[in-house]
C-alpha cells in the first residue's frame, strides 16, 4: 500500500490474487468458476438474446433506482431503493456474463453495459421512463417486480442450468422488491387526497406500457392478479387506457433511454482502457 495517493493504493493489486472492492469497470466475471457449457440441442443464440433482454431490463431500472439516492423522501426509502437497485444490478451482471458466453462473441459484462447504444438495448420501455415522483417510481417498481418475478418463477426450470439458477436466485430477491413496492402503493393510494391523486396520475401514465410486458413474457394473469389485489387494498381503480404501440424488446425506445445511457456510460467511454 502506498500512502501518498489513496486512489493509487486502492487500485493496487486489482487482479485475481488480491481482489479488493471493485469500483467501476474491470470487475471479475460474476460467473467465475461456474460450469458454462450450453446443454446439447439448446439454441444458444436465442438463449443469449433472452439473457441480454433480461439483463437490459435490470440494468436500466437499476440506474433509475440509483437516481433516487440523495433525493428520496426519507433515508430508509433511499436505502431500500438503492438495495433493490443493487440486486437488479447483480442480476444484470450475471445475465450479461451468460449472454457473452452464449452469443459467440465472448463479450464481458462491461461491453454490454458500457459500449452499446440505445438502439441496441432490448429493455422494455417501462424500465426507462423517468422516475417522476415517488408514487410513479413505486408503482413502476411494483409492476416490474411482479412481472419479472412471475417470469423468473417459470425460468427457474429453464433448460439452461445457468439461466435457471440465476432466475431461482432472483425469485427470492424480487419477492422482497414486490412486497416493498406493494406496501407503498397501498399506503399512498389509501393515504391523503394528494397521495391518492398522485397514484392515479401514475397509473394513467404507466398503464399504456403494460401490454409490452405481456408481449415479451406471457405472465399477464399473474401480474394482473397482483395488481388487482394491491389496487383493491389501495382503493385505486384498474386503469383502462389503450396500450402504446412499440416494443423496447425490438430496439424501439422512448427518448428517455439515450440520456440515461449517456450518464451511465460516460466515464467508461471517456477512458475505455481504464479500470477503477
Amino acid at each position: 500500500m502506498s500512502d501518498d495517493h489513496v486512489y493509487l493504493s486502492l487500485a493496487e493489486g486489482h487482479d485475481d490474487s488480491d481482489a479488493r472492492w471493485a469500483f467501476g469497470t474491470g470487475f471479475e466475471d460474476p460467473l467465475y468458476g461456474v460450469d458454462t457449457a450450453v446443454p446439447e440441442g439448446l439454441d444458444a443464440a436465442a438463449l443469449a438474446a433472452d439473457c441480454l433482454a433480461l439483463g437490459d431490463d435490470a440494468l436500466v431500472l437499476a440506474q433509475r433506482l440509483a437516481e433516487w439516492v440523495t433525493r428520496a423522501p426519507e433515508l430508509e426509502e433511499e436505502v431500500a431503493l438503492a438495495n433493490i437497485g443493487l440486486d437488479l444490478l447483480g442480476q444484470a451482471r450475471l445475465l450479461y456474463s451468460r449472454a457473452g458466453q452464449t452469443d459467440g462473441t465472448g463479450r464481458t459484462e462491461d461491453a454490454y453495459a458500457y459500449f452499446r447504444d440505445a438502439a441496441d438495448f432490448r429493455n422494455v420501455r417501462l424500465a426507462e421512463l423517468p422516475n417522476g415522483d415517488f408514487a410513479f417510481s413505486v408503482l413502476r417498481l411494483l409492476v416490474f417486480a411482479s412481472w419479472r418475478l412471475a417470469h423468473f418463477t417459470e425460468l427457474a426450470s429453464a433448460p439452461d442450468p445457468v439461466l435457471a439458477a440465476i432466475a431461482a436466485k432472483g425469485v427470492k430477491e424480487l419477492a422482497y422488491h414486490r412486497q416493498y413496492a406493494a406496501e407503498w402503493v397501498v399506503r399512498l393510494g389509501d393515504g391523503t387526497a394528494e397521495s391518492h391523486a398522485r397514484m392515479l396520475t401514475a397509473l394513467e401514465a404507466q398503464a399504456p406500457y403494460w401490454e409490452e410486458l405481456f408481449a415479451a413474457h406471457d405472465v399477464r394473469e399473474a401480474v394482473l392478479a397482483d395488481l388487482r389485489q394491491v389496487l383493491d387494498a389501495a382503493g385505486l381503480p384498474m386503469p383502462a387506457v389503450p396500450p402504446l404501440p412499440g416494443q423496447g424488446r425490438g430496439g424501439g425506445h422512448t427518448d428517455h433511454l439515450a440520456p440515461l445511457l449517456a450518464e451511465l456510460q460516460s466515464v467508461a467511454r471517456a477512458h475505455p482502457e481504464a479500470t477503477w
Partner: protein
Amino acid sequence: MVTVLTDVRRARHIAEQVPDPELPMLTLADLGVLRDVTVEPDGTVVADLTPTYSGCPAMAEMRAGVAARLRDAGFGRVAIRTVLDPPWTSDWITPEGRRKLAEHGIAPPNRAPRRPAGPVPLDLSPTRRTVLCPRCGSAATEETSRFAATSCKALWRCLSCQEPFEYVKEI
C-alpha cells in the same frame, strides 16, 4: 490416499476460517456460503462458494480471501467455483453463526418461508414475525426498514430498551 484425505481435511479447515468481508464476526462456514472443499487427483484444491445475493459485492473479496489463505498454507493449486444452485438461504447460517451474530448485536434470521415451487403469493397482511432484541431479549420489537446497510439485513428497533438493531433477513 491417506495424504489426500489429510489434505482435504486441512484445506477445508483453512477455508472454513476465512472471515466474511461484510459480517467479519462470521466465518464463511458460519454464513453457509462455503459449500464444499475437495481435492482433485492432481492436487488442486477446489472450494465451492455461493453468493448470498445476486448483487453481493463481497463475492470477489471472498474468493480472493479463500484462495490467498489456501496458498499461504502451501496449497499450490487452488480453484474457486461459484455455485448458484441451490440458491443461498439464511437457513444455512450455522447455530454457531447465529450465536455470534446475536453476541454482536445483530438479530439472527428466523426460518425462511417454505415455499412450494410455483408462483410466489403476495401477502399484504401485516407481517407477523417475532424478532428478539439482541440486546435485552425483549420480543417487543418492530421493523423500521426492510432494507439496511447491506442486502442481507433489515433495520429493527426494540420497544423495551429503545435500541435500534439490525436483523438478518430470512430468505
